[in-house]
């Protein structure tokens, strides 16, 4: 059993579900949950329930929230202090950024966006070539870092002590970069990369306002709404909603593609989803050859029907 850190992501005072999956990925090891800032007490019970033996509440002097470099320094100090041999996190925007910074500071291995990890054997599996292949990697070095693709590991309860330890990192900000503002998006939306269910509208959605139809259906499933490149290029949706090669890579439990033809570049962004459903008017659409369930039909009829069934 080795000392394994799990960097916890917290949103509005709650542990993100994706972080619980990462705790489960570390099951069997001596787990140190790493919490930046002062939310440790709030999330203690949840972290203990999912296997955290220790909870390290990390603080550092200076404006920690505004400096990813300072955050990386503070986490590095904790990794050294508690002799952590492996540190896991979520492959979210923030997670990927922070782990790459820590890897650079510590000069240790980092495997990004893994779908499987074996901490004892130091082996990981991840996508290469946009979901076309999986690479099995052997990780070298005494200490390693790993980010886990959201939703690839189902959280499982594994009660542990969850003792809070206060850790004040004695570190300094290199002063290179500073977050001067965070621009919120207009609507309160689920993050695509972390959503357990996604419903996507392709070119057949025809107009920006028709995404409302998908949003209504999404709300009933706790889903996020995505868009294909064709829909983004046509101006129906912002780039932040794009799934695929030049958009986001997602791996939800359920992916419902509405009026998406199924280009290779789209699949690159969602191929590792557990269940893929396609709804398309064109019976010859390539997507039907590569998904799990298909419905041939007009999305403007099928989606509302689906919404009303979900309400029942």
């Amino acid at each position, binding site marked *: 059993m080795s000392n394994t850190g799990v960097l916890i992501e917290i949103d509005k005072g709650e542990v993100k579900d994706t972080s619980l999956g990462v705790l489960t990925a570390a099951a069997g090891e001596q787990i140190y949950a790493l919490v930046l800032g002062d939310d440790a007490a709030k999330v203690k019970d949840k972290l203990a329930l999912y296997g955290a033996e220790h909870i390290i509440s990390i603080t550092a002097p200076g404006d920690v929230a505004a400096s990813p470099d300072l955050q990386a320094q503070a986490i590095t100090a904790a990794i050294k202090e508690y002799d952590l041999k492996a540190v896991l996190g979520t492959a979210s925007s923030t997670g990927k*950024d922070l782990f790459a910074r820590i*890897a650079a500071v510590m000069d240790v291995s980092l495997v990004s966006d893994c779908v499987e990890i074996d901490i004892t054997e130091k082996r990981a599996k991840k996508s290469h*070539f946009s979901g076309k292949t999986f690479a099995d*990697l052997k*990780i070298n070095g005494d200490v390693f870092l790993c980010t886990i693709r959201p939703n690839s590991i189902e959280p499982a309860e594994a009660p542990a002590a969850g003792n809070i330890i206060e850790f004040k990192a004695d570190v300094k900000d290199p002063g290179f970069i500073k977050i*001067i503002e965070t621009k*919120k998006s207009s609507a309160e939306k689920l993050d695509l990369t972390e959503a357990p269910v996604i419903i996507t509208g392709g070119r057949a959605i025809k107009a920006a306002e028709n995404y409302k139809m998908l949003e209504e259906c999404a709300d009933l499933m706790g889903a996020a709404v995505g868009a294909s490149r064709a829909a983004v290029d046509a101006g129906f949706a912002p*780039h932040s909603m794009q799934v695929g090669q030049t958009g986001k890579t997602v791996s939800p439990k359920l992916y419902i593609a509405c009026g998406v033809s199924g280009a290779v570049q789209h699949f690159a962004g969602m191929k590792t989803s*557990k269940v893929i459903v396609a709804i398309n008017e064109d019976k010859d659409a390539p997507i039907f050859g590569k998904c799990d369930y298909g419905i041939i039909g007009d999305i403007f009829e099928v989606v509302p*029907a689906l919404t009303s069934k979900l309400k029942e």
Partner: protein
Amino acid sequence: MKIFVCVKHVPDTAASIKLAGDTGFEDSEIKFIASPYDEYGIEEAVSLVEKNGGEVVIVTVGKDDAVSTIRGAMAMGAHRAILVKTDSQFLDSSLTAKALKAAIEQDGAGDIIFTGKGSVDTESFQTQYRLAGLLEMPVVNEVSSLSLDDGKAVVEREIGSGEKEVIEMTLPCIIGADRGLNEPRYPKFPDIMKAKKKEIREIEFSSLDLDESNAMVEMEKLELVPERSGAKMIDGSVDDQAEQLVKILKQDEKVL
């Protein structure tokens, strides 16, 4: 301004990958391109130099064949290039960053180093950070907007669900380009011809005193992700279809 752009030579995203041995892939018959996000970096560098003067230098770590990708970047307006030659299909991020650092330092410091936000072959999202660590420079990744002002760069970076961080960074710096930063140009024929005459300096990876056997991560096996064999079609009236689908997702697949 002197701007470096780190460009990776990768299989075309539309190419189908055929395995070769346990850890490699067939690379002689498929088309290679500049990793798509790198193109946003090239475009940004070229437009900045068009506005402010200076030069754009492409730096690539790759096989001999990477010359075709470098010529493409030159056709977009880059002035010259450095190719660090390696025979390896997969060089880990740490060694790649060290090779890039050596090439950049041999050439002399620049004001900005662009990379893509990640490469579409190994998808490791870390080379730019390691390079920043080695060069002791600031780095911000997934940048979709950039403005330069008074020796500083102000960038925007998306952090999920449409939220954006506005970040101020000191120069020189490293910027990982994302879609949205610009619209990469299509080179015109005369630019393609001109690109053929531009200078590519070659450096042997083996001359850099970096040990390839020192990789932090080693490939043990590369395997194809099985394709789904085709959809189970759900027939019936629209109402029936919706009902069956909900039942399947809740009861059989248990994903709702």
